[in-house]
């Protein structure tokens, strides 16, 4: 019977070819646009460190003064002063903790054949590598003693290592960054978490990878170039190491939730204690954000993309209303035919099934078109010069999601018209003919 209804559906759809084609096109466009944006947001809101993210937290103590002119800046950016970061680092109340800042440096290859070039890196403290589980291809990170002694050591990421040393072993060799020689002690296995959650969250959070890592205190002592936002207030010199310039990021790791709870109390105590010394004039208490909460809080997904998703869903909504309307008109026009079938003994259920199958055919055809359009949409997203562009690939979840959306959409679109049509009163219809 289903096969017969399917043939009937095709026959009926063929009778109004243009309308059918346009219905399929509308549903395809709606699904294609929605799935493109859902996929982009899905890959962008993924976990940068699966399995580890639940243990990682950002302590936020807002050190800014109250009288900032711009209210929008009131959202804490998580940046810390050198004083606070060093206090938390040395207090070592978490299982692991690290302070860090972004940097860029001229890299000067030993070979005379290569011109010096700029590369991006991060200045971090010892716990950074074990805390984030950065995978080492060879060698390891440095120790807390190295941090304190301002050791001239560096960990390279795969790309920079290949660029400088090719396939020859690089451990123990030196890299000249700006004006200082650093000894290579480790090489990462192409570590590129997306987004680079540990840095200041900005336009470069996606698509950017750090190619070298040095001890933070060393970088500060050598006055290497820092990147990113530095906010100062009050006055007085030595901006980077003062207690009135916020620019460092700080991360902590706990093996259990109870420890996180205890750390909150510790932060609150520190905040209150510093307040009695005239610091931290803002009313917001010290906070502790989990990694995924932090990314949401810092709007790692650009607002424009959010807007594009809503636009696509709105478009899908209008397409759906459109199709419901068209199917309804189409089915009701066949009231006569339906009445004859009913009079000959077809149950409501049968009519409903027949018309339901007809709308499913439209929905599935639209879904297939939508899938093709979504692939096209994702291809166009990949052509954008944004950092997230390369992430825009459809995975199995999204593929199944597209089909599910197409089926659900066509079911919804067909439900109301089919129900209305199967409730046609046969006697009345037949009489008017």
């Amino acid at each position, binding site marked *: 019977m289903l096969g017969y209804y399917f043939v009937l559906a095709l026959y009926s759809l063929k009778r109004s070819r243009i309308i059918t084609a346009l219905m399929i096109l509308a549903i395809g466009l709606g699904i294609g646009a929605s799935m493109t944006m859902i996929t982009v947001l899905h890959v962008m809101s993924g976990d940068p460190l699966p399995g580890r993210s639940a243990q990682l937290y950002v302590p936020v103590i807002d050190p800014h003064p109250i009288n900032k002119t711009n209210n929008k800046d009131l959202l804490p950016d998580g940046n810390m002063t050198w004083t606070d970061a060093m206090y938390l680092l040395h207090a070592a109340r978490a299982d692991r903790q690290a302070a860090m800042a972004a940097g860029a440096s001229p890299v000067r290859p030993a070979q005379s054949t290569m011109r010096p070039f700029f590369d991006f890196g991060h200045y971090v403290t010892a716990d950074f590598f074990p805390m984030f589980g950065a995978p080492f291809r060879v060698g390891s990170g440095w120790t807390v003693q190295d941090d304190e002694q301002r050791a001239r050591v560096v960990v390279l990421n795969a790309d920079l290592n290949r660029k400088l040393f090719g396939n020859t072993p690089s451990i123990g060799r030196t890299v000249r960054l700006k004006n200082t020689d650093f000894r290579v002690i480790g090489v990462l296995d192409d570590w590129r978490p997306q987004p680079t959650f540990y840095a200041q969250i900005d336009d470069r959070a996606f698509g950017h990878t750090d190619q070298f890592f040095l001890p933070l205190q060393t970088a500060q002592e050598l006055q290497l170039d820092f990147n990113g936002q530095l906010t100062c207030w009050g006055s007085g010199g030595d901006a980077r190491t003062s207690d009135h310039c916020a620019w460092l990021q700080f991360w902590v790791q706990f093996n259990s939730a109870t420890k996180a709870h205890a750390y909150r109390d510790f932060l609150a105590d520190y905040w209150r204690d510093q307040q009695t010394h005239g610091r931290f004039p803002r009313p917001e208490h010290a906070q502790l954000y989990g990694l995924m909460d932090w990314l949401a809080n810092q709007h790692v997904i650009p607002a424009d993309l959010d807007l594009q998703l809503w636009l696509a869903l709105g478009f899908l909504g209008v397409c759906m209303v459109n199709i419901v309307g068209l199917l309804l008109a*189409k089915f009701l026009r066949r009231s006569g035919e339906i009445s004859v079938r009913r009079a000959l003994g077809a149950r409501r259920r049968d009519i409903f099934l027949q018309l339901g199958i007809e709308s499913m055919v439209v929905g599935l055809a639209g879904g297939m078109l939508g899938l093709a359009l979504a692939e096209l949409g994702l291809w166009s997203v990949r052509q954008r010069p944004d950092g997230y562009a390369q992430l825009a690939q459809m995975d199995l979840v999204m593929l199944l999601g597209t089909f599910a959306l197409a089926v659900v959409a066509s079911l919804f679109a067909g439900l109301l018209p089919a129900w209305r049509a199967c409730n046609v009163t046969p006697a009345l219809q037949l009489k008017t003919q």
Partner: protein
Amino acid sequence: MSLPPTVASLKRHKLTALLLVLQVSLTCAIVCNVAFMIAHRTTQLRQPSGVAEDELVMIDSTDLDDNAQPLVRHDTDLAALRQIAGVKSVAAIDALPFNLNDWSNGIALAPNAPSRAVATAYNGTPGELATLGLHLIEGRDFLTNEYVPIDSAHDWAGIDRVPVTIITRALVEKLFPGQDPLGKSMYPDDKPVRIVGVVDHLLRPHVREGTDSEYATLFPMLPDSNDVTYVMRTSSQDRDRVLKQAADALNHLDDNRILQHSQTFTQLRTDYFHRSRTMIALLIAAAAGLLFVTALGIAGLASFWVQQRKRSIGIRRAVGATRGDILRYFQTENFLIVTTGVMLGSLLAYSLNLMLMQHYEQPRLPVLYLAIGAVALWLLGQLAVLGPALRAAAVPPVVATRSL
């Protein structure tokens, strides 16, 4: 054609008509907001930066010499760049509109007072104003003896030694509304700086919403760190050649340096706004798609209705209705549906706008855009219904005598 029969007939298709009204109103709500967003973003895109955009090229240089003396190095480099044919003037600077290199200070009007505005500091060598092509509307350019080094090695301490500044008109209006700013002092840090000039426009390196975008101060401070931007003014057809020759000239002088971001100002602007342009294109596509789908819905429903009512049309024609009457009947019906949709849509548009204002810092939707949306939908509706309505008008009266 009087309205009552039209309304009465619509009552027989309550659900279908309701769906069409819903579709028109959703489209109206979205399209009004989208049109407004397009206009808003296009304005941002077109914002004048204040500099001579078609005539500027720049190149970033980072000196790698361990014992470099940046001030001397910059002077030598500038002298070499000046020799390039077609270069009208050059300057070493630390920031430009759209280059994201933003050093902003809170500006107070008394020592240790709360700051009134946050403004970008633009610093550069003598000739910066002329090179950038800034338009001085009041006061004068800096004098040679007013220049001091930024002192970037000591947290940019030059800001406490610089005697004078030139600020933008937007900042004047914020700091000294209705007053003559020349000769007045402001406090970007601890020490007073006297205002000697006003330029009409200069955007900040990061474009922001509203007048904040143009809060900028120019200081006669010489860049003195190892990395610097050289900006050259030339005629627009010479730009590519000048850029190439500039890189050669700088490397010829001393190649122990990294040159990067060698580009024209036009490229800089294009790159800065690429996201906005993508977004505008998507918004236009979405609006067009919505209107297309809605037109489709209107035309599709109308043609079903025409087929369904063939017999009644035939009867009406048989009892004396003209083709024009039938045509106008369908047009009136469409007008009724679209008008209801537009009215509902206006409410929806405003609620949507309220949500956008909360979450996406979108300004309030001006009534004009509702009018545009309404007119667009009326026109669209009439166009979409025209085909089916003409077919209806062509139904001959003899249909009335046939049975279906």
